């Protein structure tokens, strides 16, 4: 039976679980830290 507040049902994992998700996020974390060292250029008129 679901909770009366739908947001208490989250995070909801589909076709995965917390363990697998945590592993994927750890890999992403390192990619992001590398990315954080780079620069995005915005062209202004």
């Amino acid at each position, binding site marked *: 039976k*679901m909770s*009366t507040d*739908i*947001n208490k*049902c*989250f*995070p*909801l*994992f*589909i*076709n*995965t679980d917390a363990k*697998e*998700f945590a592993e*994927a*996020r750890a*890999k*992403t974390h390192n*990619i*992001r*830290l590398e*990315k*954080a060292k*780079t*620069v*995005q*250029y*915005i*062209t*202004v*008129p």
Partner: protein
Amino acid sequence: MVLSIQEIVYAFLQVYYQRMKSNPGKLANLYSSTAELAHINYTQIANKLEDIDEIPTVKLTGRDNISKFFSRHEKKVSDLKVKIDSCDFQTTGINHKNILISVTGELFWPGSQVYQFCQTFILNPVAKSNDIYDISNDIIRFIPNTFQKIELVVEKQGRAPT
């Protein structure tokens, strides 16, 4: 049995995302015959998952086109792994009979990065007397990473440094 809107929404989310895994060929049955869809462009991501920061989307109209699309990309669809973080919903349309749903979460494939997304659905009741709904609209949009520093480049100076 009369379901609350919240119960309909929660059941819908489970059916929708579970069917991506278990039976992507039948995912299109959840859509109305004239549904509009903006979905993951599986063609573009097929061979370069690690190279992209943001996943492109493709636009389709009609259940038949949606069916062909999901069937063509069956492997990528069924391999998808999803973590739903939030769901907001409102009633809409004539007599507030339709349901607008806004979902946020993260998704990934085996070995891929994790991508943040937001997805918007509109559900329409199929018949007056029961709790059967079709999807009339489905828009998925990926949230770009914002981890980079920003530098401004004045247009007249030409291109950004490489």
